[in-house]
């Protein structure tokens, strides 16, 4: 478990991370969302022991991270602009990482390089941006660490590769309980992979919740009513977050228990009613509004 308690970090006059407290459980995928400059990368660098927090503590399995190789052996950090040695090849990287990470799996790396069609003897400098990202992820997976910190790692991957990486993550989570921590400014990238999402804004955490918990408490209903129905009265009895009306077709996003919402709407005798899946974006709109923020201004 990674635990950050009241962590702050400033760069001169700029407060990059402000009193953040977050807990990242093992075996889940933690998504860290925020606009550019929200403090995601700074937080990850502190979690990776690159930066020392000005205040607060970050522990990994109860071990302080900063300058602690024992803790650092438990994660692999992929920065937003990963460094590769000059003139290096994947093969040389493999050799280097196997010196640094005791559990580094060379065979696995060879297999994955083949799977991703990356030549292990080719100079990394000649790789495309996406190929370098793939290589970073492969190195991270093969390092055999418990945690994988990815800073904007999916940015630059094509949809096919993104899916491939996601499936590798899923496999690793299932097989050995890998805990990826993914920082991104793009909600849609994390939608189908994260179990837990933390939203950072201006250095602080706006919310940090299990995605399922958020989904349980908010629902989207599409329904149609006769002209004389008492729909407006009914809607007052439920906690409507958003309402869209197109002719007789209503699309209502409301908080509360799904059955309660359905029952309440049923009392207005709808011609048609259907519960629709909510996107992460919609959930966030709802949750951040509760916190008093307009998410559209924060992320989109």
């Amino acid at each position, binding site marked *: 478990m990674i635990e950050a308690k009241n962590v702050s970090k400033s760069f001169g006059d700029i407060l990059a991370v402000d009193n953040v407290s977050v807990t990242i459980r093992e075996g889940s995928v933690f998504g860290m969302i925020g606009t550019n400059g929200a403090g995601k990368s700074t937080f990850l*660098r502190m979690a*990776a*022991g690159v*930066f020392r927090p000005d205040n607060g503590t970050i522990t990994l399995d109860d071990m302080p991270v900063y300058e602690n190789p*024992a803790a*650092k*052996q438990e994660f692999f*950090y992929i920065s937003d602009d990963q460094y590769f040695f*000059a003139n290096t090849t994947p093969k040389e990287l493999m050799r280097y990482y196997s*010196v640094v990470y005791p559990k580094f799996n060379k065979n696995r790396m060879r297999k994955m390089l083949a799977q991703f069609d990356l030549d292990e003897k080719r100079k990394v400098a000649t790789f495309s941006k996406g190929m370098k990202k793939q290589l970073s992820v492969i190195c991270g997976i093969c390092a055999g660490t418990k945690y994988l910190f990815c800073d904007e790692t999916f940015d630059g991957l094509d949809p096919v590769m993104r899916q491939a990486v996601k499936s590798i993550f899923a496999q690793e989570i299932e097989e050995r309980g890998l805990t990826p921590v993914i920082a991104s400014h793009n909600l849609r990238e994390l939608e189908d992979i994260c179990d837990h999402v933390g939203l950072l804004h201006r250095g602080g955490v706006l919310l940090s919740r299990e995605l399922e918990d958020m989904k349980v408490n908010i629902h989207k209903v599409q329904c149609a009513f006769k002209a004389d129905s008492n729909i407006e009265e009914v809607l007052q009895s439920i906690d409507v977050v958003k309402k869209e009306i197109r002719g007789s077709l209503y699309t209502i996003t409301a908080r509360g228990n799904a059955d309660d919402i359905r029952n309440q709407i049923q009392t207005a005798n709808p011609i048609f009613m259907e519960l629709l899946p909510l996107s992460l974006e919609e959930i966030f709109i709802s949750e951040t509004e509760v916190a008093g923020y307009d998410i559209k201004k924060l992320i989109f």
Partner: protein
Amino acid sequence: MTSRNSFFNLLKEDLHRRLWTLILSSLVFFGTFGVAFTMIVQNYVGRYSRVNYGYTKAQFIEMVSSNLCEDFYSFFPWFMAVAIIGAIICAMNGFAYLHSRKQMDFYHSLPVKREKIFAVRLVNGVLIYALPYLVGLLYTYVLCLIYGVMTWDIFFCGLFMFLIHLMGYLIMYLAGILAMMLTGKLVIAFFGICIVNLYAPAVYALFWLLKDTFFITAYNSGMDFDIALSVTRWFSPFSYYFSLVNEINGDGRFWLEFLAFLVFAAALVALNLWLYKKRASEKADTAMAFKATEPVVRFMIAVPVGILVGMLFFSIQYDYGFTTSVLWLVFGGLLGGFLCHGIIEAFYKGDIKKCLSHKVQMLVTMVLAAVIPVLFMFDVFGYDSYLPKKNQIKNMAVISSEMRFGGSYYDENGWIGPVDYALENMKVTNIDAMYELAEILTKDAGKHRAERFFDYGYNYVTAEDIYGNSSEERYNPTSFIIRYTLKDGSETIRKYEYNYYAVMDLLEQIYNDNEYKSAVHPVFGLLKTNVNIKNIEIYSPVNIKAGNMQLNGKAVLEAYEEDLLAMTFDDLKNSAPIGELTVVFTIEEEGGKYDDSTNFLVYPEMIRTLDLLRVSGYQMKGIADASNVNSISIHYSGSQNDLKRILGMEVPEEDVQNYYDEKSVGYEDYEIYYEKYGYYPPTVASPEYYQDIVVEFTDPAEIAEIKKHLIYRSYGNEFGPFPTYETFLNVEIYFEMQTGTYEELLAGEGIIGWSERFRFREDEIPQFVIDRLFEQLGAENY
């Protein structure tokens, strides 16, 4: 940590990353040892193994060995350049990751402690230099073994120089790392390396400039470079390295030095590591890694730069008088301080608009840059008026440019000039006359300083300004160096300029003290050292025959010292040397033995020395007693009027005017005259007409008379009765001497001849010589 993640694996991996520096270093040392030293060894072996040299095997090996040892040392500029450039490259290349955010993310997220990353980088930087050097050195040893010339001397010389250069490299390298730690950008780091290395010498030079410009009694001897090194060596790796090569000669002191080095290097490693652990990763790509160092560095640079700008302005405007020059001095300081502060601040912030930040600090910098040189100018520290109380003085030394004797002196520390010798050895305790002289000189220095800076400006001060109208008083500006050694052990040296004739009586008192004599003549030091005197050669212009003399060097020098002590100031003032003793001694230094020599002048009053020489078969005579003179030629270059002037005769105004008269024939008209009349003009020329004439005397009576007034020209710079017109009037004497047997003489062999140049003693040119000179110059009335 598993064994795979060990220090050595990381070392190996890091070396892979820095392969180019290893290749570069290997190429350089291959060129040095593999090519240059191979050629050198082959050359020596080829040269000394030639049959016609006739060396025995042992001599052959010794010759090669001593030459090669010398080369290990004499190649030091190359080795130093390699070490300095190598250290800078390795420090910058090895720690460049500190200046890259990407690399910081990478290295500092790895499960490796920073100490280990630091140690790996540090050690590899040393190996990159040391390994190829050692391999090259070993190759040279093997080469010597193959050629059969390997000796322990070569082994230790090579190893010793390796150690010296490794020490220099390490200090430069650690200083380079320090600059990398303190900065966040490579360009700034490079400037940082320059500053770390050159700051102390530059500040020393600036201080020296201020002192030299504003303190008129500042003494700057030829030892300045050594002093600069010794003062700055612990503050500048560059100076330290230089001083290592300059001073260390492999004796016992080296190991003390080595211990000090180890402590110094360990302190630098510890400082670097401490800074590394303190250094925040986010400081990559910022100018300075530590906020606290920003004002300190800026201040340390901006103040001296401001002073320098002020000094530049001052030197340009100096001739315009006190008010103008001091205003420019202050303005330059303010402007230089302001600009330098602003530029550094803009570098720090990466924004030219921020150049006016920290206004109070800027103001302090500007004020200091303007005020410090003014303090020097007004001598607030009382430097020029320094004169300790008489009862505080333990001993003193006085050296006058008019009273320097003998050449350089050699002891176990090497060659030393007569001034430095006297400063080091003169510890006169009877200081009455010296102190009186110091009082006069100090008082005069105050007057001189006032005139130089505040009344006229330097260029307008003349001898008359300082000494008054010298038409009635004889005037000879002479420099005086005075050293005060106080009872508390401190030493102060000052230099003055004053009229020699005005203090001649005091100088006489000072010289006639035997304590003074034995310190002002370097010969007294020679016997006290362990210098091995090989033999003494004798030279006299009158008699060049030395013969096969068996001289006891020690006995001759002892007699010489005794004679010198017996000679008074008056003797020296009125006498002139008649010859010299050349003491040949053997010097044993690293790289081998060789002979060197130093000369001491012999005066006719030195009866003990002359007797000893006579007993040994050599009669040293003065020119007056020379019997082998057949003719004397007097060469004169100049006009009639020039001769009158140097003889102190009056030159009529009309004679000068005649030069421009149409009747006169100047040099340019000479050919015109020839073209017009078909012959060259008569020798009766204008009194200003420049001529080269030779007047020859063969009459024995005239020769005898002339000889009485001559002194040998080569000793003209010595203390004594020497005139200043030697460039115009030379007396050349041709000597003949029989050296062979009667048979040889009959065969026309055994007679050698040579000529020497002399001068007349001051104001002692015989009248018949003057007459002949004017006659030859074509002067009718004079």
